[in-house]
């Protein structure tokens, strides 16, 4: 067995252990319904953050409209189960594909832009998606699509998250992924070396968008409702913050960022009026002292694990 497979196996075992512990704690009711909800939310946020990291971190494009794809997934999934009566797995697939197709269609023209222009264009497109949904009466318009059955549970979310993380990790280490990294380092140089920059940028964008769609289906089937107000640009900023806080280009960073921010936000739920103030201060202070993110673009590797003698999922 080669080194990569060995690593994958170890990571898989580690995540199975984490899963078993969490399930055990839930069964023993040490983790109550409130934290169970937040665990699901953490898993969904990890999917979102790591998929945005594919675009912003690996490929170096600057997208801040991720909530739009989340919305497409959420609504597409809900339409599949509520309106058309398909099963939940089919809804997940449909939501993923729908968001991916939209990501492709949006990515193709806009990825010619760079830097701040791309940022503001994706922000605008995210809002356009939301406003269009807001105006479609078929999916409930401004009052949202209600009566979605709760089909998402911790088991499905956790293992889907693991699958997405493995996919992204493998993508990063593949030839395609390395092409993306080359674009991040210097687009003109990558172009000169014969990399089809447009193709890889669109590829990363489409994949990132489709995973956001997956997260969207999970999201709407956990909270019973898909509401346009959940998908404003503030949500995109939330996801972006997780990615940057963890470290652009670091998958373990995204995981940590998502866990940390969701946790801060949940832990402060008892102090609603102070919650967002502390949250925003934490954001500013972390950036002031660690502008490259917690992990920079490095991964938390097995070496760090063995030196710490600790266990944590997904190295």
């Amino acid at each position, binding site marked *: 067995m080669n080194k990569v497979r060995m690593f994958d196996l170890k990571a898989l075992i580690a995540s199975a252990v984490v899963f078993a512990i969490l399930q055990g704690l839930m069964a023993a009711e040490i983790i109550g319904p409130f934290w169970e909800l937040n665990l699901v939310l953490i898993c969904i946020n990890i999917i979102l953050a790591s998929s945005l990291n594919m675009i912003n971190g690996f490929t170096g494009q600057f997208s801040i409209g991720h909530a739009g794809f989340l919305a497409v997934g959420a609504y597409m999934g809900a339409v599949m189960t509520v309106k058309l009566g398909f099963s939940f797995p089919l809804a997940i697939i449909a939501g993923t594909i729908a968001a991916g197709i939209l990501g492709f269609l949006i990515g193709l023209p*806009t990825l010619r832009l760079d830097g701040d222009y791309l940022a503001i264009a994706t922000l605008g497109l995210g809002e356009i998606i939301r*406003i269009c949904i807001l*105006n479609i009466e078929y999916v409930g318009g401004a009052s949202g699509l209600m009566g979605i059955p709760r089909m998402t549970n911790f088991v499905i979310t956790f293992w889907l998250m693991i699958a997405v993380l493995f996919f992204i990790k493998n993508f990063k280490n593949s030839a395609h992924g390395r092409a993306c990294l080359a674009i991040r380092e210097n687009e003109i140089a990558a172009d000169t070396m014969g990399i089809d920059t447009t193709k890889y940028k669109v590829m990363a964008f489409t994949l990132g968008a489709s995973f956001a769609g997956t997260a969207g289906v999970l999201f709407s089937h956990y909270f019973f409702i898909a509401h346009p107000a959940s998908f404003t640009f*503030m949500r995109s900023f939330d996801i*972006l913050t997780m990615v940057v806080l963890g470290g652009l280009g670091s998958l373990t960073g995204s995981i940590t960022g998502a866990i940390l921010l969701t946790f801060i936000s949940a832990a402060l739920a008892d102090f609603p009026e102070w919650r967002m103030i502390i949250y925003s201060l934490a954001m500013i202070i972390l950036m*002031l002292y660690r502008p490259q993110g917690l992990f920079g673009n490095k991964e938390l590797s097995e070496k760090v694990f063995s030196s710490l003698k600790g266990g944590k999922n997904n190295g």
Partner: protein
Amino acid sequence: MESGFLHQLVQQLINGISLGSIYALIALGYTMIYGILKLINFAHGDIYMLGAYIGFVCTSILKLSFLPALIISMIGAALAGMIIERVAYRPMRNAPRIAILITAIGVSFFLENVMILFASPQPRTFPAVFTATVYHVGAWVVNSQQIVILVSALVLMVALTYIVNQTRAGKAMRAVSFDADAARLMGIDIDSTISMTFALGSALAAAGGVLVGIYYNSIDPLMGMVPGIKAFVAAVLGGIGIIPGAMLGGIILGVVEALVSGFISSTFRDAAAFAILIIILLFKPQGLMGKNIREKV
């Protein structure tokens, strides 16, 4: 029918220009700060909110009239802008740009939520500082608030153009935004110039906030989010970093929004703003008044 259409068109143009001049005021601050720091200052919309609240306190509690309220709110916001720059942005001058952007988002959340904590999330009614007189110009309706907005915006824009083009501080600002390192070598104090830019931009946003309070009679702690983003759209539309561009972009955005809400549906108003943005970005990414700069290898 034909004259009815024309009548409504002109009426919407009047509404659009007064709304657009407010966008232009906010966009000016965006464009100046971007020009000098290359930072999308997401907290700018909240400075505008802050300005509206200072104006609210001045008019409703201190019972001041329009002009002193406007000036106090501009000074207050200018100070806030300088403090924010000093505390949150200056230590990050050499950090990756995305990190500063996250800080800006953090500052924006912070201002919004501090305001929610102190002033409650409920909207406040902005007192009527003017008796709303409605003038009939021919068949069209113009109210006194629209005239006040337009006149104040014009005066402020002229003042800004004068400061930027004719004064030493303005010259320093232009120099820093053109090439910060060269400006430093010429003996320009970069820090105080950037501070000055934040003060000017924030003051203009605050003026926009007070004017909006007068126009819509209602302010709330989250009022800055959407206009903030739209003002950035206006700045990009005109060509970011270019001061006349921000004015033009603001007015165009206001007019288009008024036309869309008048002729199509007001729910598509926000989408229209972003649609223009994307069309502009795809066909002329440097903006209407921007120059095309090629990246050299």
